[in-house]
């Protein structure tokens, strides 16, 4: 039995909460859903391993040795995972300081805040590495099965990278607190997390575009220029790659650096955790957030609703960072567009699915905020306007925001390849409509600050939204390429929508 207030006691408390949260998120408290979820996960795992086997088969047949090209490729893949892990860790660490929940209770108690931070930092490291391990598992397992069991050490490298990410994220957050103060730290950290997450991937995509004219993320790591600049295979810079390939010395070094940096960061951050968390709690919107006094503008109810939605979207820093992430993903296609301006239309075909997919995903988030994330839903429900008008105005607000983001790229595209621009605009509108419709069917009233947990309300909605966007993106690419097969993904997308509609909660 752990002593109350001890590290183990805190860990058990956090683990219990996390486990119940996870169960609720995955199953919604329904046993049947658990069974379906397990079946779905099993099917996905088999498919993912099959695809990984297909992709890695030819490379493994030639044999993998720790030469410079292989080490560069493994390092590149590791850096991709690290950027995602660091982004996730920065976001989670910021939440540890700013989310109140039980923090006020614990900070007001005689229990040690340092121990709480240690447990929460550990939890951040575990959740960060768990996601990466899950994503990398098919590749690592296939490598281990066909290339040798030594590849299993790649899991340990991911664990070390997760710990290193959590430690680094804590130091970054501390640095922000020290330089910017508690008021700006949250916003800057959120934007930083978005840029780290998307920035690296986008950077190497941009590099690949500049070098090869394609969007492949790992193409850059195989370029002759970069290989010529790469260090010697014995360089410590390649230790993580060597560790992933099963070399014991580098593996121990990487594990030591990862776990050690986490421990040191906890030690440093623990000293000021209670102070910074208290400073964060003392923040209010009032300080410095005055607006200028102006007279009311005449507005119809629909105009009032649209204006309110746009104003709230503009003033939501967290959403700003999420939106920024989506917009950042549009930069590589924009770069490709810029570089190939004046070329044949064929080159623009690769841009079409990216823009369509981004529209669908952006629409999903915005539609949730406008339709479900309504903080004053009773006010609107008691207003003398029809429900249909409310929904129409909110959908118009979402469509307007997406048009604003997409329009500059579409205009640029229209100058270079008008037909491709038309195809992109049409399918972006369809993807936006699909995601908005799904959010409409699965709407469930919630506070806007629960945006992060919007997937919790319905896994089906989240999956349907992503799957429909992918299918519309595929259909758009095929139309742009002049392929008559475009109807296949389009039919699948319609099927996804029909299934989602059938599974949506019935409304009286």
């Amino acid at each position, binding site marked *: 039995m752990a002593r109350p207030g001890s590290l183990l006691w805190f860990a058990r408390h956090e683990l219990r909460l996390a486990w119940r949260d996870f169960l609720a998120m995955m199953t919604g408290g329904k046993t049947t859903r658990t069974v379906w979820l397990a079946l779905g996960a099993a099917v996905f795992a088999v498919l993912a391993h099959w695809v990984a086997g297909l992709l890695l088969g030819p490379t493994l047949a030639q044999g993998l040795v720790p030469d410079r090209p292989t080490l560069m490729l493994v390092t590149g893949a590791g850096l991709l995972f690290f950027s995602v892990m660091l982004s996730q860790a920065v976001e989670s660490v910021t939440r540890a300081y700013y989310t109140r929940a039980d923090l006020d209770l614990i900070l007001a108690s005689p229990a040690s805040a340092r121990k709480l931070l240690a447990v929460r930092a550990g939890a951040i490291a575990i959740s960060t590495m768990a996601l990466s391990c899950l994503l990398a598992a098919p590749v690592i397992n296939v490598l281990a099965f066909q290339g040798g069991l030594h590849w299993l050490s790649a899991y340990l490298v991911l664990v070390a990278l997760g710990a290193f990410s959590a430690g680094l994220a804590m130091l970054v957050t501390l640095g922000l607190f020290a330089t910017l103060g508690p008021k700006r730290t949250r916003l800057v950290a959120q934007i930083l997390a978005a840029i780290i997450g998307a920035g690296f991937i986008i950077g190497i995509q941009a590099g690949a575009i500049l070098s090869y004219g394609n969007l492949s993320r790992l193409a850059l790591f195989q370029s002759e220029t970069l290989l010529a600049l790469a260090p010697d295979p014995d360089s410590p810079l390649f230790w993580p790659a060597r560790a992933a390939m099963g070399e014991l010395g580098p593996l121990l070094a990487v594990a030591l650096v990862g776990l050690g940096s986490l421990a040191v960061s906890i030690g440093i951050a623990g000293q000021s955790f209670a102070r910074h968390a208290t400073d964060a709690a003392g923040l209010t919107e*009032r300080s410095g957030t005055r607006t200028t006094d102006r007279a*009311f503008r005449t507005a119809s109810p629909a105009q009032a609703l649209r204006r309110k939605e746009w104003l709230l979207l503009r003033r939501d820093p967290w959403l700003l960072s999420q939106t920024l992430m989506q917009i950042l993903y549009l930069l590589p296609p924009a770069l490709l567009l810029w570089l190939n301006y004046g070329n044949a239309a064929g080159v623009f075909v690769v841009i079409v699915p990216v823009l369509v997919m981004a529209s669908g995903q952006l629409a999903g988030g915005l539609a949730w905020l406008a339709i479900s994330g309504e903080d*004053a839903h009773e006010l609107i*429900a008691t207003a003398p306007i029809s429900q249909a008008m409310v929904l129409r105005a909110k959908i118009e607000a979402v469509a307007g925001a997406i048009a604003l983001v997409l329009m500059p790229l579409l205009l640029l595209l229209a100058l270079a390849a008008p037909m491709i621009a038309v195809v992109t605009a049409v399918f972006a509108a369809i993807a936006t409509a699909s995601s908005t419709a799904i959010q409409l069917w699965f709407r469930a009233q919630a506070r806007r600050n629960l945006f992060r947990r919007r997937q919790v309300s319905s896994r089906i909605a989240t999956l349907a939204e992503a799957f429909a966007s992918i299918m519309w993106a595929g259909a758009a690419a095929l139309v742009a390429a002049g392929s008559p097969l475009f109807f296949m993904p389009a039919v699948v997308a319609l099927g996804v929508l029909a299934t989602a509609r059938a599974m949506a909660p019935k409304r009286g």
Partner: protein
Amino acid sequence: MAPPALAIVDLAKSFDRPAVDDFNLTVEAGSFYALLGPNGAGKTTVLRMVAGLLKPDRGTISVLGIDTAKDPIAAKRAIAWVSDEPMVYDRLTPLEYLEFVAGLWGMEAKAADAAARSLLDWLGLGPHRNERCGGFSKGMLQKVALAGALVHDPRLIILDEPLTGLDAGSARQVKDVLLDKVAAGTTVIMTTHILEVAERMAERIGVIARGRLIAEGTLAELREKSGQAGQTLEDIFLALVAERA
């Protein structure tokens, strides 16, 4: 003869079990009415049905002679709803919030602007009218919500526990505003657990238990009905509820 502000006939609503059953109530226009009842008695359910937030299983509701089922938009135009949880946006200022409410009720901008500024001053929120609501105290948020309810000049104001969490000064301000509105001809219906407030402010009081209206009238009439002459409303309420338990 002017129609009553509210006429409810045979209202019923069930969730897992009946929440409101055979509920009948008439509230005259220009009066202050308090609806009392223990936790879970059905007060909020009744008022949410009146405000159009819940659909009744059975029965009719008329607001100033308008059937809420037949013409909900016209009925809503006359009603304001204030719940115990203030429905305010953190990232809007009180003025922006009131501009939004005015837009929803289709008010003319100039008149709405003047009404909003006057209301905010009246409620002591004038100096904060351009600050975002995110940092406001519960009392300030409740006053912003109340200003939102009043800005479109409703003829029937429904308040569900509006004084919950308010300090004495804020509670007094809210009560004064409501009494002024009643004096000007508006009808106010309020639920509260603070029986002293109901005793002092309400002209008529309804007691609800297990989804039914078990007693209704002025304080004197309730004393007479319960056989508790000279007793406080608290004594009468507890006696009435105990009878139905």
